[in-house]
């Protein structure tokens, strides 16, 4: 059963919010599947333990997977080591260390996919997984697999200080510095919640086309939340930092910087007033606000729903779908970005894919299956949360390309409306294109100026309408990290310059 709503969050949340069949099953048995994000954390070994399986065995498994028929088969082997440290109320509340490994075998036969995985990676278990996965290929056409051999792919991730070389004391130090900076910012900051996470994911991707790839992806995610309380109002703010890189991330972006940004928001929003309700103009600040087009335009441009002919953009390639100033890109090659993965989890090289150019729809984001179904070139968007999931079309780093307007001019030329400085996240129905977002920090615009802060309002609309109503795009492109949920999680960046959208419905509590 496909998911009904695709959601994106700026921090990990429990997955039961998702309307997937899997999510609907609240079971002890399925809970490992529901828990990926908050838990794991990492060492950062330089080799990939447990992944050193003989290529001849992989050939045998792929041959077994295709023995009943089928067009394509692949083997995915993964090893993940992760670390998470949680600090709340200036105390180190818990430290979590996790290791997991597993391997999955997939068979594609026509439009059908069979998948099974094992956590004990032995030849016998892989052959059994191949047998289960081949169930869908009964009576399918016969394909002869190509023996696997080492394949070359470009890399966009460089590491100076491998996570495996970092003492835990250094991790603790970073957190202490963030806590100190947040608490020192203002006495109305009552608490900081700091979440440090790092992981190293080792992967092997091998398939019946002869591809064999092995690499290691380091990932860091640092979240500072602060709570302000002045006796009259409270606000929980948030600032995040995430990259596919080594510990040197904190040289460029200091923990103090992250903490101060969070604290600034918490204090600013203490004065928030009720938001007005109804349709109004919205100016969105550059950065994570790009999550709006991630949801509203990105998900509907993922090729799985297009192949099923149910997506909002089905059959619209070459047509004008947005205003002339609107260009949108998904780029899996931005150096060290959170959404960058070198090659996707099916082994396809990631690329810079222009989705919409000056308002004209150029193409979709696909995985191997949907590329074949639509007869399109592979875009490198086949991603998976872990060996427990099959790859599906997902975004990487998705953004509105920068325009020519000065951000200050965009604000000053807007008489009345809402200025959205940051969003928490939102969701979209990929079939209808109807989306919603919740503002975390927003202000009224009066006579071209940012004035009173307003309480977290929801913005709603439809994707086709919103991209036609963007009438100004700034020259200040920036990004923010997030977690995208589509039955399984993917780490993504969303970005945009400052933009103005005419006529969005704002969910306020006063006229």
């Amino acid at each position, binding site marked *: *059963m*496909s998911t*009904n*709503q695709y959601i994106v969050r700026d921090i990990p949340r429990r997955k039961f919010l998702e*309307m997937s*069949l899997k999510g*609907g099953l*609240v*079971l*002890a*048995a399925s809970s*490992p*599947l529901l*828990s990926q994000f908050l*838990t794991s954390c990492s060492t950062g070994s330089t080799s990939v333990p447990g992944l050193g399986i003989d290529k001849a065995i992989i050939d045998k498994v792929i041959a077994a997977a295709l023995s009943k028929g089928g067009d394509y088969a692949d083997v995915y082997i993964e090893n993940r080591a992760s670390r998470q*440290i949680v600090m*709340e*109320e200036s*105390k180190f*509340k*818990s*430290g979590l260390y*996790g*290791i997991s490994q597993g391997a999955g075998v997939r068979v594609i036969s026509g*439009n*059908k*996919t*069979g*998948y*099974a995985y*094992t*956590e004990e990676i032995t030849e016998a278990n892989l052959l059994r997984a191949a047998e*289960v996965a081949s169930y*869908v290929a009964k009576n399918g056409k016969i394909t002869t697999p190509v023996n696997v051999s080492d394949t070359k792919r470009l890399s966009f991730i460089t590491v100076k200080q491998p996570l495996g070389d970092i003492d*835990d004391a250094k991790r603790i130090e970073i957190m202490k510095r963030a806590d100190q900076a947040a608490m020192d910012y203002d006495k109305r900051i009552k608490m900081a919640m700091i979440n440090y996470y790092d992981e190293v994911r080792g992967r092997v991707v091998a398939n019946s086309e002869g591809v064999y790839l092995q690499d290691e992806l380091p990932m860091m995610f640092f979240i500072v939340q602060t*709570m302000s309380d002045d006796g009259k*109002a*409270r*606000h*929980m703010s948030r600032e995040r930092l995430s990259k596919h890189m080594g510990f040197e991330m904190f040289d460029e972006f200091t923990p103090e910087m992250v903490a101060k940004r969070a604290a600034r928001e918490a204090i600013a929003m203490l004065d928030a007033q009720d938001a007005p*309700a*109804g*349709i109004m103009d919205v100016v969105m600040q550059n950065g994570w606000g790009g999550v709006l087009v991630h949801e509203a335009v990105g998900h509907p441009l993922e090729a799985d729903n297009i192949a*099923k002919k*149910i997506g909002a953009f089905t059959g619209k390639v070459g047509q004008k779908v947005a205003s002339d100033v609107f260009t949108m890109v998904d780029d899996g090659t931005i150096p060290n970005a959170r959404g960058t993965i070198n090659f996707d989890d099916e082994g396809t090289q990631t690329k810079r894919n222009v989705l919409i150019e000056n308002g004209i729809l150029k193409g979709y984001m696909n995985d191997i299956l949907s590329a074949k179904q639509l007869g399109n070139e592979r875009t490198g968007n086949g991603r998976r949360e872990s060996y*427990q999931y099959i790859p599906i079309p997902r975004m990487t780093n998705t953004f509105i390309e920068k325009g020519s307007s000065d951000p200050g001019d965009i604000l000053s030329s807007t008489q009345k409306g809402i200025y959205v400085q940051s969003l*928490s996240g939102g*969701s979209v*129905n990929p079939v209808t294109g*109807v989306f*919603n977002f919740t503002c975390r920090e927003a202000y009224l615009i009066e006579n071209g100026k940012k004035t009173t802060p307003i*309480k977290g*309002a*929801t913005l709603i609309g439809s994707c086709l309408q919103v991209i036609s109503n963007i009438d100004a795009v700034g020259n200040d492109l920036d990004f923010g990290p997030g977690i995208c949920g589509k039955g399984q999680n993917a780490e993504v960046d969303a970005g945009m310059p400052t933009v103005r959208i005419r006529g969005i*419905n*704002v*969910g*306020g*509590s006063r*006229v």
Partner: protein
Amino acid sequence: MDYIKLLNSLVSKAKDFGADAAEIYLETGRNLSIQVQDGEVETIEESYSAGVGFRVIVEGKMGFSHCNQLTDDALEDTFKRAVTFAKLTTADPNNVLPDNKEITQVEGLYDGELVKITMEKKIKMAIDLEKLAMKDPRITKSSGAGYGEGQGEVYIASTNGFLKVYKTSGCSIGVNVVAEKGEQKNTGGEFCSRRYFADLKPLAEIAEKASKKAWELLDPIMIPTQRAAVIFDPDVASSIFGGVIGALNGERVLQGASFLKDYLDKPFASPLLTIIDDGTRAKGMGSTPFDGEGFPTKRRVLVEQGVVKGFIYNSIVAKRAGTVSTGNASRRGFTSLPGIGTHNVIIQSGQHTPEDIIKSTSKGLLLKEVTGYGIDSVTGNFSGGATGFWIENGKIKHPVQGVTIAGNAFDILRDIDMMGNDLDLNKGLAAPTFRVKEMMIGGK
């Protein structure tokens, strides 16, 4: 594998590894997922998994580690990692493991028949469900149907002298369809989850509900921005009560991060509102004999006639609050530390039929879908996107899409003035239809 022997052996090594106290959580599971599209199988996924989480306390400091390799070497290494990691954290006298050795008897958590039903039958059910949901001529496309099932066992062993086990099963079937009319598109989905296969709702009933959700909101008419009554369908109750449950989390209350922090034994909502958390309901999808750290589950009244009767706790937070655990340690599998969460939340039903509630509404919005995060459990702020029907003079006039609703938790909860009698206990958050006297609605 003899897990009991394995756990006993690991517990006996806790002291040698340097842990003053240790809890070992082991979980095994089998999952099957079938998805069909346009009458054909789209995906079949099957998996068996097992994993262990170690929670240790060393000189008052807590550490945690997990792994999914059950070899002696991997387990011992992971156990030791938890001890090493504990040393990084801050000592806290409240860091304790539960010592209650009891187990609550809960009936109907495991269906032994599930595995005996053939794959062919499960595939056919999903295909039949999709076909039934497509029967209505207003439905133009399917976005797929699916069947999923899982079985699992949970073991918790503790140096406090207990080893507890339970076994659960669950199955679920659902469908999503699309209704189109001219340029309009609308989706509708419905699913049913149960512990026992035989308890799944008839396919025709699920199909009809999914199909109706897709077509009933076609041809919407926009309404002006205004204040009016809002009726919440049971399907959207979580947009309101999810945040209330979050605000009853004992840890957030202690941290001052809850809009209900000052309301113990005080009224904050309409006297029509009573909220119960029941971890013991027979066949309940959220029921278990003990919680995520082995504490026996209970049935508790959290809010009674608009008054907060108690917050929810796990052992550590309860100790900090000077009370005892309420059996609300939640766990998202072997990879997570126990947090705090509910089991089966029930909003007590009232006297009115949903039809009565509509009939007595002179002007208002009947909500069928709410988007957004719901009530913010820190501030009580609420804002969401809304879809439903406009009501005038007690009658449904037309569908409404693309409006917003907003307010503050205290105003919304105080203004609940009608509670329905249509409670379906099988829902994860079971609530009847209810009405809020007046809320802000954002439209044209």
